[in-house]
């Protein structure tokens, strides 16, 4: 009964979404205030019904109602309760329900926080969100209903995929979907601006905090996914250039470009067309990602089960988005004016460079992900594209971008003086080179690419420090309070995010060059060394978990005879699939290195195959990712946006484009 109520609520939400996709837009077209105002209440109604529907599905999981097909496939009686709750998004149908729920939540957030938007603009944004929501809800209701019942009720369910029975997996999908779905809001703002024909600084200022917040969630989602792959898959890798990973990485790249392009649109009124294109492209890439993951078109380790009908539906949504946006653009483009001009060396030009590099990098990932499919579709030869391709193409694009990350924030809008910049930064440049040269020596082995990566990371960190110092010194005469006051959240957030990027670069450079990986045969009492640590096998014993049996090795780690840690890697045999053992690695983390031990199979006698890793600076990768996301949140919280929102009505009515504004300093 509860499942039927959930289904009913889902269908009601679908009906509300259709109304939300029509009424506010008609209202904006005809100037009917009452119709325009419906967007807000329809969004709230959608959220209420979807929350109910989601709760109903969760209840079906917790109560182990195996008459619901989705529950029977993704849960069983022995599954621990916390995983029953998270199993709701462990499969295709439930994760889609989570997706539409989050979309509705974003819709309500827009309605609540955008009270100061011009009514027509808000009505259009809500209308476009309603259309997006209609698309995803139709997809859920028509092709992937999680409430379908089974005619014959099984005594027990299949089980949640053991790979997903993990804390990292609890957080990964919701964060990622928050990012994906947030991009729908950005898209809605872009389409609303195109509909009104007014792509101006005010539009950029309204959509900027939403873009930033969505980007933060996307960053966290990608980061947690990588963290999960690192410790759960048992190979010590953190990025595999797998099509599914690429599906989340491509919108991240264009969203990053969009963040920076929006800065130019807001501050200087430039890049309008480019910005709106990026907003549309990012949203289209999120749908493409759903298509890649959910249609079975590309083979991947962790995609959902294939179903061509779903693929056709998502492809139609992608086609409607892209073709509709292009048509709208062709209709409205003549009304989009040019922004302020800028010189060849200015913050605009560097941001343009950053944008081009990010978009080209995204195109490279796109080609690498879909090229095998394209050749296949054309009936040509079949090839596989692996990390060698991505490394060869991606790295050279990132190097100049990292350099620009250092320079960009320090130079002026419109026209800057290269001579002055070089004077200001020559010492920083030299020190960065020295750090780049010296640091690899400290690690024992000098490699040119590592030196380049570390030098660039130092460059980003040092230029950020210089910029912060300069900004504070400008108010030296006004006391410490004023000096600290100069560090506005948007300014700090920008540098924090850039510094986070630098930490990630350090981690990648270090781990690619200096990681030690050893497969060793260990019987009780045997010792092996890796990265200067001794690993002694004490023994292997059986352990019983809530729904699995495991062999657990106890391995004592020492360094020069002094104890460091005791690690207990497991090899788990889940009751539901005992022929596919899962590795549960055991880690000892320190700021400058991870020790990572994974238990392989039993060799002859009581000897086991054990995989030992020494992974330098992995910690910096996760800290860097968190800093990037936190920096974004900080920037989005800047008071400027709240003030802008209060004033925005006036700005929008009186000044179509704030092109002549004086050069500001922050990109935030």
């Amino acid at each position: 009964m509860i499942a039927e109520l959930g289904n009913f609520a889902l269908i009601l939400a679908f009906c509300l979404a259709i109304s939300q996709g029509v009424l506010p837009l008609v209202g904006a077209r005809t100037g009917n205030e009452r119709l325009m105002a419906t967007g807000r209440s329809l969004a709230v109604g959608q959220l209420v019904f979807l929350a109910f529907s989601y709760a109903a599905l969760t209840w079906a999981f917790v109560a182990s109602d195996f008459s619901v097909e989705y529950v029977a496939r993704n849960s069983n009686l022995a599954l621990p309760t916390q995983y029953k709750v998270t199993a709701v998004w462990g499969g295709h149908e439930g994760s889609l329900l989570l997706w539409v729920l989050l979309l509705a939540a974003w819709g309500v957030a827009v309605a609540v926080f955008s009270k100061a938007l011009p009514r027509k603009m808000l009505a259009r944004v809500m209308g476009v969100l309603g259309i997006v929501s209609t698309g995803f809800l139709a997809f859920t209701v028509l092709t992937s209903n999680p409430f379908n019942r089974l005619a014959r009720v099984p005594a027990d369910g299949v089980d949640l995929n053991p790979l997903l029975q993990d804390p990292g997996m609890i957080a990964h999908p919701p964060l990622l979907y928050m990012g994906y779905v947030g991009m729908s809001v950005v898209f809605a703002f872009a389409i609303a601006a195109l509909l009104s024909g007014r792509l101006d600084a005010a539009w950029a200022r309204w959509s900027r905090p939403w873009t930033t917040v969505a980007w933060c969630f996307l960053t966290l989602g990608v980061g947690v996914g990588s963290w999960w792959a690192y410790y759960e898959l048992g190979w010590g890798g953190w990025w595999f250039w797998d099509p599914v990973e690429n599906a989340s990485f491509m919108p991240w790249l264009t969203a990053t470009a969009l963040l920076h392009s929006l800065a130019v649109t807001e501050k200087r009124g430039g890049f309008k067309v480019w910005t709106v294109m990026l907003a549309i492209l990012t949203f289209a890439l999120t749908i493409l990602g759903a298509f890649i993951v959910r249609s079975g078109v590309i083979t991947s380790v962790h995609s959902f089960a294939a179903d061509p009908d779903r693929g056709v539906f998502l492809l139609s949504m992608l086609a409607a988005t892209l073709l509709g946006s292009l048509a709208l653009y062709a209709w409205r483009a003549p009304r989009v004016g040019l922004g302020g001009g800028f010189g060849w060396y200015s913050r605009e030009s560097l941001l343009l460079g950053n944008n081009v590099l990010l978009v080209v990098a995204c195109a490279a990932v796109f080609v690498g992900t879909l090229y095998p499919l394209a050749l296949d579709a054309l009936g040509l030869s079949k090839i596989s594209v692996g990390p060698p391709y991505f490394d060869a193409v991606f790295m050279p694009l990132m190097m100049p971008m990292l350099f620009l990350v250092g320079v960009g924030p320090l130079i002026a809008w419109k026209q800057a003086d290269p001579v002055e910049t070089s004077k200001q930064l020559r010492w920083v440049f030299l020190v960065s080179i020295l750090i780049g040269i010296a640091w690899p020596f400290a690690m024992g082995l000098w490699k040119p690419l590592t030196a380049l990566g570390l030098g660039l990371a130092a460059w980003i960190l040092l230029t950020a420090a210089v910029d912060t110092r300069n900004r504070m010194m400008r108010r030296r005469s006004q006391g410490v309070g004023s000096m600290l006051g100069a560090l506005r959240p948007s300014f700090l957030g920008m540098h924090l995010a850039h510094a986070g990027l630098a930490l990630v670069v350090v981690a990648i450079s270090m781990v690619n060059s200096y990681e030690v990986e050893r497969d060793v045969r260990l019987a009780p009492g045997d010792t092996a060394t890796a990265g200067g640590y001794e690993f002694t096998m004490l023994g292997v014993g059986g352990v019983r978990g809530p729904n699995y049996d495991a062999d657990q090795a106890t391995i004592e780690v020492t360094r020069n005879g002094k104890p460091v840690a005791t690690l207990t890697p497991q090899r788990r045999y889940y009751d539901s699939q005992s022929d596919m053992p899962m590795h549960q690695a055991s880690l000892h983390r320190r700021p400058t290195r991870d020790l990572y031990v994974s238990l392989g199979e039993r060799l002859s006698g009581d000897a086991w195959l054990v995989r030992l890793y020494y992974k330098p600076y992995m910690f910096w990768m996760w800290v860097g990712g968190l800093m990037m996301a936190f920096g974004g949140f900080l920037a989005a919280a800047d008071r400027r946006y709240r003030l802008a929102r209060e004033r925005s009505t006036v700005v929008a009515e009186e000044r179509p484009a704030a092109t002549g504004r004086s050069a500001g300093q922050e990109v935030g």
Partner: protein
Amino acid sequence: MLRRIAFPLVGVLVILGLLYVGLGIDSRALPSPLVGKPAPAFQLESFYDPEEIVTEADFIGEVALVNVWASWCSSCRSEKPYLMELARQGVTIHGFNYRDTRADARRYLSAEMNPYDKIAFDPNGEAGMEWGVYATPETYVLDAGGTIRYKHIGPLTPRIIREEVLPLIEKLEAENR
């Protein structure tokens, strides 16, 4: 008006078209045109010794598995324990080391964990082309006469080994006797 969007429009249509055609193809169940044909010819350096040349003749002579792998391929790592198990049961396994470097592959293969008998080193995917390699890992079963009798794309799982690979090997060995 159309001219303004002609270029992106064409790009969008091409990509949508490709994705649509791609939907019709089940990439997991590609029937290899090579099944039933003799193993394609190739000449490559041996993985163990650059001086030595490995050809298709080295793979032929007894019923054998030919596995295409690379150290960068995550699915290969997941199937490696099962290959080890097969090797321990006495199944001959040859390999193509595909688009890889010797140093990385050697680390991947440490002495204890090498299920392969002969390994052809194919850094540019030349033989991979001839053998119709779609994505690593791939596994072929050759009969004693060198004819490809089976091909599996993607990692081997215990179920596939139990239900498809082992029965076929037993059958082929019985034919051979």
